[in-house]
């Protein structure tokens, strides 16, 4: 649903000189649902992803907060318990694979705010985003569980705020920035999901945001794709454009709205774009 997150990340990284290498073998991490199905299967399937990265001699970067959390949690558990790692490797061995426990997992947000650095990012900005008052929506899985993730502060996260400001925008402060969009129960308890999405959007809107930005494509699905359903549930118009992190960076680097796939959004950001 959010192919634009993938495409725009590639364009932005190219522009910034960040080298990305595809992982053609990588399977789905399970988004938490495989964890619900069978913990050992979940560990083994994630370890298969890590084994591919190990063979490539690289760490993993994902553009999805849920992938980040699911993989990081598997990695934490495997590294904390040598017996569990061995058991998991016995399963991998039936497919001729092995994971040695050397991989780190990051997301685009961390690569920008950490590895690449805010000062370097600022130097690349050609079109400062002085038109945006963005509500930073971190999404649960960029922040928690912090013992598995470890980059940002789950209570007072700074990385997305800092990136927005480095791009010349304003980061709006609101309570919902560390809270959940409800994505995981979209198809299971739609009422909870839609009410949750509406609550977050209205919270940011009330604090003066003219857009939301998120590093997580699942959050984007709820905040943008399903905003219409959330509006219905809340019985009010919200009309809040929502950007992927990569799109916001791209716009500041001088890439066009078209290149950033903005027409794919259900809530058009056209009105606020400069």
């Amino acid at each position, binding site marked *: 649903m959010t192919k634009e997150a993938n495409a725009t990340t590639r364009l932005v990284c190219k522009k910034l000189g960040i080298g990305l290498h595809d992982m053609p073998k990588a*399977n789905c991490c399970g988004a938490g649902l*495989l964890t619900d*199905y069978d913990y050992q299967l979940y560990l083994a399937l994630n370890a298969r992803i890590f084994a591919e990265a190990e063979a490539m001699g690289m760490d993993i970067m994902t553009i999805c907060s849920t992938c980040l959390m699911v993989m990081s949690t598997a990695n934490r558990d495997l590294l904390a318990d040598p017996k569990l790692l061995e058991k998991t490797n016995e399963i991998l061995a039936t497919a001729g694979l092995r994971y040695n426990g050397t991989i780190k997992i990051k997301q685009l947000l961390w690569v920008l705010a950490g590895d690449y650095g805010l000062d370097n990012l600022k130097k690349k900005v050609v079109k400062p985003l002085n038109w945006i008052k963005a509500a930073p929506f971190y999404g*649960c899985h960029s922040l928690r569980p912090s013992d598995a993730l470890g980059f940002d502060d789950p209570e007072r996260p700074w990385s997305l705020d800092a990136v927005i400001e480095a791009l010349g925008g304003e980061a709006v402060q609101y309570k919902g920035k560390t809270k959940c969009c*409800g994505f995981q129960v979209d198809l299971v308890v739609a009422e*909870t999901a839609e009410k949750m999405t509406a609550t977050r959007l209205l919270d940011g809107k009330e604090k003066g945001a003219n857009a939301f930005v998120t590093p997580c494509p699942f959050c984007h699905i709820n905040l943008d794709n399903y905003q219409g359903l959330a509006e219905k549930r809340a019985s009010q118009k919200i009309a809040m454009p929502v950007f992927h992190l990569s799109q916001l960076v791209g716009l500041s680097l001088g890439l066009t709205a078209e290149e950033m796939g903005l027409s794919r959004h259900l809530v058009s950001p056209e009105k606020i774009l400069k």
Partner: protein
Amino acid sequence: MKIKFKIRRYNPAEAETAEPYIQAYMLDVPEGMTVLEALLNIVDDQDPTLSFRKSCRSAICGSCAVSINGFSKLACNTQVIPEYKKAGEMLIEPLANHTPLKDLIVDFAPFWRKMEKVAPYLTPEEGAPTMAVTPKDEERVDRSQRCVMCGCCNAECNSMAIDEKYIAPAALAKAWRIVGDVREGNAKKRLERLSEEHGMWDCVRCVHCTQYCPKDVSPLKAIEELRSAAMKEGITDNPGAKHVEAMKDSVERFGRLDEAAMTFKTLGFLRSLGMIPFGLRMEKHGKLPRPHIFAQIEDLDEVKKIYEEAERRAEAEKKEMESRKKG
């Protein structure tokens, strides 16, 4: 260090305090002082009317959970100075998702009702042979046993904030303590009940419960265990379990998530039809997912082998447990 404590107060018994308000107290805080010590100090020296729960002062009783700068914590194992330095203020409020009764004291009756709903005691099958509980058996439920019922997890639960009927993490962690116990005789019945509306499938996986549990119970882990146990018992006729099955099938067949099939399999035919108008809107923006037909990754046979081996092991474990239970 002089610190201003801003405390949310409320006393419905008096007309002028019947609306919540913030009262400030200045306190000289030495290194190492806990929030609870600070509150006790305020009561002793400044204002004996300030009300809050407390007992053990050592994170065992679970009485003193409050919201500190917006997040649920035990007042007794949270130090003032690091917290103040991080947040730039010291704001103390009653636990969220709970109704305040007076000042920082909240109504715990709904918490206990949720707990009672999961019948938090073992119900062994009558006449079942006695069975040794091995250290490995104990390890399965060990984290759930650490719960001190402070309510931090429920206070942080994003799902409960929307739906107060949701059974919520504290009771679910307790439910796993019972369901995961090898001596329990009604695990299947319990899992069926937990699979009903407002039950374990309503968790949004926001990970707040696990992040803010002061005893490392990890309620989310307990919820995952309960869900797995229900799937293994064949309790799959509900949207939550169907969603998981759809994911399991999709990764096994294609290596990736098949968004179109996920929706269809979770909602079923009729409810999927209801999504058509919305689907058309998505299609206009090129967002309607297409179902997969071919493998989406290289070396999919590896994934299939991993599934086979993991399922073989899960089956063997299940058989071993069944034979142990027979004595």
